[in-house]
């Protein structure tokens, strides 16, 4: 799945939310994140039209399937997220006393 992000001023948001073919458009605060499959050209054309009208107000990141020059190294393992780790002893009592003055 390709993805690009658009930073669109509030006064232009309706141009996107009213679009007939929005695919999947999600408003995240001031940023629209448009995720698309085959409709890249449609969305890009729409953005370019906006750019032509409001060149200063729209930031349109390029949305090509960028060739990544660096392999993403899978070096990090064992991400220490949460949840099902059993609660441990009271050996962190010292922790708070060491980080609070």
């Amino acid at each position, binding site marked *: 799945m*390709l*993805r*690009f*992000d658009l*930073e669109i001023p509030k006064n232009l948001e309706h141009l996107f939310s009213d679009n007939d073919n929005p695919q999947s458009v999600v408003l995240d605060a001031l940023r629209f*994140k448009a995720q698309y499959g085959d409709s890249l050209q449609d969305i890009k054309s729409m953005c*370019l039209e906006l*750019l*032509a009208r409001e*060149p200063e107000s729209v*930031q*349109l*990141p*390029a*949305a*090509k399937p*960028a*060739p*990544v*020059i*660096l392999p*993403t*190294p899978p*070096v*990090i*393992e*064992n*991400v*220490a*997220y*949460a*949840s099902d*780790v*059993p*609660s*441990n*002893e009271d*050996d*962190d009592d*010292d*922790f*708070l006393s*060491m*980080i*609070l*003055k």
Partner: protein
Amino acid sequence: MIKIASDLGRSRVRLIVNEMSNAYVSAYKEIPADAATRDDSHKPYEDFIIDSSPIESLCGRRFVRGETADYHKGVTVTADNQGRKFEQEATFVNMAAALAESIIRNSDKYPPLNPQVKLGLCIPCAEFFSDGASQMKKTLAGSYIVTFPITGMSVAFKLQESDIAITPEGVVALYALPKADRVSATKGKLAMILDCGYGSLDITLLRNGLPIGDTARSFPVGGITLEAMLSSELERSGVFASTEFVRTVLYTGALNHGNELLDVSETVNTCKVRFAKMLVQRAKSVLIEAGLNYTEVSAICPIGRCFNKAANEGIVSLVSLVAQEWGCDLDLIDISYNDDLEFANVRGVAAAM
């Protein structure tokens, strides 16, 4: 009592008040106390006068920040990455404004005059584990009056030393993790916290879950360094960009050059590789100074906006690049709630205070 957790960064001030987080730009501009007031402003707290402060040199001075600063002439001031936090005027200007604004925004729950304030803040580890905490408390404690000229409202409050909680940046972020997660991520390990702010990099080692205070070091390297690298690369291509523009490019990997859209992910990646090497070089120097070998480090905890994931999938994560440069396997201690590492420290302060 109003509880205010804060993280005064070089680029932004982050606050958590009543479980609500807020952030704004920390640079400000000093203007004459009698300068005209914009009466059409939608940002009434961006213009403030410190009428009274424990720091006498600040009394009677007026400051503006953010959008409001664009409408005034004055000297822009920000914290630097050389002096210690409690020695910088910018720290105390931002703190006075942040406290006053927090009180006034919560005036439906607390009296705007003389409410009891409990303040939590974080300072660089190297300062915390020396005498920085006591110095900061002594400097902050006292009576304040702050006026917001746009609304005409004033806030008065007093900070007691006993109501100020000081914590070490980076390490305190771990305290926001559920206890079991924190213990399991650090127990029996030599772990390293890389807290990369805008102006400085703070490195702290933890052994068996507890900080080794005297190994904490701070370096004048940060997001500003990465921005400078990218700005320089873009200039080589004939693109002269503002700071805000460079930040957008770092996040998106795309360049809006006139009506032409260019993918510059490769340039961003090249800069990130150089930056990762710089971070690792500093980290290894801390270990050498502590008489330790880098292969002993088995877990790493990255903190700061630099380590956030970018929008463009063509941009390689800085976390991955650091791990690659490290040269041996590392566990990741991930405290990035919703991918946002910017609030990691202030979340920890709120939990600890």
